């Protein structure tokens, strides 16, 4: 029996970015449809079982309704859907717990539907299980837009061993973080220190409040915080280094740069310095109080007595390159 996990975040893409910028939003109904398309792809390559967590957002309830309808109307080749037995709180810890259970239940691949934040949580618990990443919004850097039927085929092919996972997976970097010596859930793309006092609505968009930015990679065509690095000094996803940028208010900084900080929002940022971040190089942030934003979301408030340390690490999650998988399958001339 081959098992796949699907982690679909019901909360992503409906935060304050809809208000301050022109970020897209994907309804629960559409998320549910994305999962259904993925199930079709997974079924086509012979995956037997899919694990999901129950969510209060309504994705799983919608799915169960769809399965019920389909059972009556059309014969389906969908895998069996198993809902993980766990308490659901509607909070981030649900994702962590669900991924732990998927690991325990021998999921060979985890498909993730969500934004950078969801991927960050999954990556924290997935170990060496490869991820197939599907972005459910326009404000993401880590996952790419991916049609989920095809992503399902690719996920299934890797899980079934139809392609060699070493040839189609990428080893990602990550940023580790400790607060007062205690390890926290790290970041996949960026850690930004801001002068905001409060986590509040979480998103980071007031560029005058940005102070320090740590990046695992930075691509010039990115949206969000990493675009700052991408436009200053691009670093590839697979490069052996990252980037550190010192930021400040525009009027007191050495350089001013306009960046797409959020979908539909181009703002100037003040730059005071850029340098490489070496692998495993230990570092402590300079700011004395503010918030730490992890992959674009304010998550930690810190004050003058707290120490915050950040380090670039090699052991981020493995991610499946869907296009590579499909090319391999093409050489075989069939899907399964």
């Amino acid at each position: 029996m081959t098992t796949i996990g699907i982690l679909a975040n019901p909360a992503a893409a409906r935060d304050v970015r809809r208000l301050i910028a022109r970020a897209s939003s994907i309804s629960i109904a559409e998320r549910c449809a994305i999962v259904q398309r993925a199930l079709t792809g997974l079924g086509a390559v012979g995956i037997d079982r899919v694990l999901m967590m129950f969510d209060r957002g309504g994705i799983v309830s919608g799915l169960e309704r769809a399965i019920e309808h389909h059972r009556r109307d059309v014969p389906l080749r969908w895998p069996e859907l198993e809902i993980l037995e766990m308490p659901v709180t509607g909070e981030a810890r649900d994702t962590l717990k669900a991924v732990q259970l998927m690991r325990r239940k021998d999921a060979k691949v985890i498909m993730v539907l969500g934004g950078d934040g969801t991927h960050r949580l999954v990556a924290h618990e997935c170990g060496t299980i490869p991820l197939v990443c599907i972005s459910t919004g326009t404000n993401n850097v880590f996952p790419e837009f991916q049609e989920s039927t095809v992503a399902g085929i690719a996920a299934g092919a890797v899980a079934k061993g139809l392609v060699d996972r070493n040839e189609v997976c990428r080893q990602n970097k990550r940023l580790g973080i400790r607060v007062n010596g205690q390890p926290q859930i790290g970041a996949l793309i960026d850690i930004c220190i801001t002068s905001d006092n409060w986590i509040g609505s979480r998103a980071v968009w007031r560029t005058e409040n940005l102070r320090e930015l740590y990046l695992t990679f930075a691509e010039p065509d990115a949206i969000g915080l990493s675009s700052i690095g991408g436009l200053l000094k691009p670093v590839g996803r697979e490069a052996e280094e990252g980037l550190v940028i010192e930021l400040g208010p525009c009027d007191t900084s050495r350089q001013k740069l306009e960046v797409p900080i959020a979908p539909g929002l181009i703002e100037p940022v003040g730059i005071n310095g850029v340098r490489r971040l070496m692998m495993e190089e230990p570092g402590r942030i300079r700011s004395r109080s503010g918030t730490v934003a992890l992959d674009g979301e304010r998550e930690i408030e810190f004050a003058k007595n707290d120490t915050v340390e950040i380090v670039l690490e090699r052991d981020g999650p493995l991610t499946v390159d869907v296009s590579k998988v499909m090319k391999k399958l093409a050489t075989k001339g069939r899907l399964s």
Partner: protein
Amino acid sequence: MDLNRQKLLEAYEMMKTIREFEDRVHVEFATGEISGFVHLYAGEEASAAGVCLQLDDRDKIASTHRGHGHCIAKGVEVKGMMAEIYGKQIGTCRGKGGSMHIADLDKGMMGANGIVGGGPPLICGAGLAAKTLGTGGVAVAFVGDGGSNQGTTLESLNLATIWNLPCIFVVENNGYAETTPSKWSVSLSGNAVDRAAGFGMPGVVLDGHDFFAVYETAGEAVDRARNGGGPTLIECKLNRYYGHFEGDTQTYRGPDEVKKVREAKDCLALFSEKVTRDGTISGADLQEIDDRVMQLIEDSVVEAKAAPKPPAADLLTDVYVSY
């Protein structure tokens, strides 16, 4: 976020006043001295406070049957409210409205409302007036998950969009409309926020127990509305501590549901924990507020009880407004 010490203390006092007011009405209602229905807002304070602290005198709000919190947050006088609930002459509406009809137009509070979904059309009117007169005012309707299903609400979302009104619709999704779960009754799996896209307006969902999240988001929505950006829908996911109305046996709720919510999602506890962490505000500062609030509530109950009811001769006064 422009939350200095003063503003934080103000936010705490506002939420604490709502909580104590509701806890006290809960106790007093059980004595049988209050007539009519009361629907308590305890547990949902961060929503009213987070939104209303972003408003000023130009702005109007419309409330629901669960309206005490909105009234207090918009500045309606607490003693008048308590007396109103007791049906006394010194009440906000001279004792003729009761809990579900407290209104104070001078404070921009257009009224609690016995009609579920009654608020949104009102704020379209207030929004249109503000826009036409160029006052810079914003109008906010609070509405429940049940209210979000009413035709009046959906029509208002449409109207606010096509007229690009400075309106904000705050859906306070507390999981139930009376006994009906919102998961079941609200389309899109209980997510009223997802309807916003259908009307072409931004929709934001947030944890309604988190004052800071509500305050910051509401601030952005208010700025946008003031600057001609148009309407916004904000869905606050939150919980009510008491029954739908006082006397509700709540057999539709899980055995420990409320207990768990009170433990993990008390907006006041979450707020206090946060603001005292770095020492800007001390436990003693909060205690001082607690004492003041307790005294205010105590005084308002004593005064309300002692006050006279409206006499029979006043039956037909204050019923219609003459324009």
